[in-house]
């Protein structure tokens, strides 16, 4: 158990590609941190640098008070779960779990006890003497977890461990990973491109974009106060609506509709509204021309256009919808971003007009 400290960590590959740029992050003991971002954002590279599988070009990585930049992966006191499990195909489940311990000269009975304990936790008992080939994807995933658990490391590193599983199993395993990590209290770094996985697992989310940290925060904070249009569009499904709007004469204008009072001089802004924050109004408000309706069973997502800008709305299932909807949103549900940099603007919108439900 230990905290992990990243200070100005950067990775430049031979050839000049900068995969990770100046990442600083402090992970508390026992914390579950999820690194999330689209493919190519540097999240896996960052994790592999902590693991010691990639050289660190700049900055320092500290695990449990020890700078590990120059240490071999085996000396860093971490355990890693790989996307394709990376089990040793010629070893039985038991051997897979105990090999790493044997190499650390841990006494035989201690190894047996740890494997026993892990097998009990992960319900792997019936498979201990099988080879990975004879296991299903979910079972292999458990073995990979078991191999990490028996090590009793300072930190778990997960590299998209669930992406090879089917959707249903993914949800189950997600819950198990979370429970297990809480129970063991081991610090965890978890990489995923799945924002739902990130939201449900993380104590804190780290959203990465182009090798840089875009935002760090608790899942709900990130969800409710995205720091940029990138985060706004990445976290949450359906993605947050981002619309071109204007601040003029102390009011926010979209498609000729006054959305409320706002400070600041006249400028173009990007307005973010989550689909579920929009409500139907009897009249007035934002006019939405319906294009497509996705029925999800529990609800429906209506896609349409406001003045030629695409917008989607989450609505409860039920009545037939007219060709044009009138929409409103609470002023605190309106997010303002700089139209050029995409960064969140400090201003908030205050109620003034009739658009607000």
């Amino acid at each position, binding site marked *: 158990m230990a905290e992990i400290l990243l200070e100005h960590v950067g990775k430049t590959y031979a050839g000049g590609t900068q995969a990770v740029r100046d990442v600083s992050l402090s992970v508390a003991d026992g914390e579950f941190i999820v690194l999330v971002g689209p493919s190519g954002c540097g999240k896996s590279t960052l994790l592999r640098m902590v*693991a010691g599988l990639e050289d660190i070009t700049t900055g320092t990585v500290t695990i449990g008070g020890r700078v590990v930049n120059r240490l071999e*992966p*085996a*000396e860093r006191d971490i355990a*890693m779960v790989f*996307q394709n499990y990376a089990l040793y195909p010629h070893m039985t489940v038991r051997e897979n779990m105990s*090999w790493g311990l044997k*190499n650390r000269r841990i006494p035989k009975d201690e190894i047996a006890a740890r494997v026993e304990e892990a097998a009990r936790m992960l319900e792997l008992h019936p498979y201990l003497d099988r080879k990975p080939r004879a296991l299903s994807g979910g079972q292999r995933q458990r073995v990979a977890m078991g191999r990490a658990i028996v090590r009793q490391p300072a930190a778990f590193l997960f590299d998209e461990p669930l992406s090879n599983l089917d959707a249903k199993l993914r949800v189950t395993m997600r819950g198990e990973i979370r429970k297990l990590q809480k129970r063991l209290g081991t610090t965890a770094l978890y990489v995923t491109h799945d924002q739902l996985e990130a939201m449900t697992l993380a104590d804190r989310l780290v959203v990465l974009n182009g090798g840089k940290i875009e935002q760090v925060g608790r899942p709900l904070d990130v969800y409710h106060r995205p720091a940029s249009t990138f985060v706004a569009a990445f976290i949450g499904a359906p993605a947050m609506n981002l619309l071109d709007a204007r601040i003029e004469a102390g009011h926010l204008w979209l498609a000729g509709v006054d959305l409320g009072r706002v400070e600041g001089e006249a400028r173009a802004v990007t307005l973010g509204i989550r689909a579920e924050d929009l409500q139907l109004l009897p009249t007035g408000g934002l006019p939405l021309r319906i294009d497509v309706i996705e029925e999800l069973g529990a609800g429906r997502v209506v896609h349409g256009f406001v003045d030629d800008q695409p917008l989607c709305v989450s609505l409860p299932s039920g009545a037939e919808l007219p060709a044009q909807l009138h929409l409103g949103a609470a002023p605190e549900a309106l997010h303002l971003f700089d139209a050029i940099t995409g960064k969140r603007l400090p201003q908030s919108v205050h109620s003034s007009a009739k658009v607000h439900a």
Partner: protein
Amino acid sequence: MTASPLVPARLAAVRRWMARPAAHPAKLAQFDRPLAPWLFVAPQLLIVAIFFYWPSVQAVTSSFYLEDPFGFGAAFVGLDNYRDALASNEYRHIAGFTALFAATVTALSLGLGLLLAVKADAVMRGSGAYKTALISVYAIAPPVVGLIGMMMFDMHIGPFTQAAALFGWDMRVGIDYQDTALALITVAVWKQIPYNFIFFLSGLQAVPSSVREAALIDARSGWRRFRDVTLPLLAPTGFFLLVINITYALFDTFGIIDVMVKDKPANNPITLVYKVYLDGFKGNDIGGSSAQSVILMVVVAALTVAQFRLIERRVHYG
């Protein structure tokens, strides 16, 4: 060719290797008519029958006869040819050298091939151009290497001989038994290393990088990672190469031996295959030569079966 009766055993080994359980078994083709599959394999079967089975049967048959050197008749002599061969001191001596030769050549060419492959693999992970460059050199060389090796040990112009002379070693390949044995083994190993290298290298490259990385986290010692993870994953390749290398040492070294000891004084080391050839084609003792080749065939078949029984069960096919 004298080696022909033994080729089926070797082909069987290759076939077993090719037929090892694949990660994704190929789909089985279904034929409506039972004759169709036989027609497809007929050309291959025909070749096998004419060039492998027919000579084998011939060899077995003639091993029971004493043939007139000029082909004017043959007398049935039962097991006499076998008895003569096995009772001969010379035969036993050559058998001893053959065993030593095969063991040394196999061990050295496998060991060195693996060593080079491991080193090359470490350098060229990920760098494709380098890989191609290395492999293409090794792929082109083998047929030429045997001949070059023989020139290297030439008594008059061979650089190895000259180098040995610098240390006061008067190397007389083709005259001195020990020197010739050394040269034979060196050239035979040299010729076989690239072959093993390519197979081992492709075996190494087939080890998933995430498995290597998992091992990197699990074990600090590179030797342990190699012994406990890489080597077992290379075992199928290694086993295949073991079978191939033993048959290589026993049969395919014929050309090397022929070039090195032909036209040289007697008392040079030769292997059983070369003796089969000498007795049959130089000595015109078809019966005796056939008996020897049958013995050789039985020995190699037994060896191959033993390898599959004893070693293969410990091999993990991925």
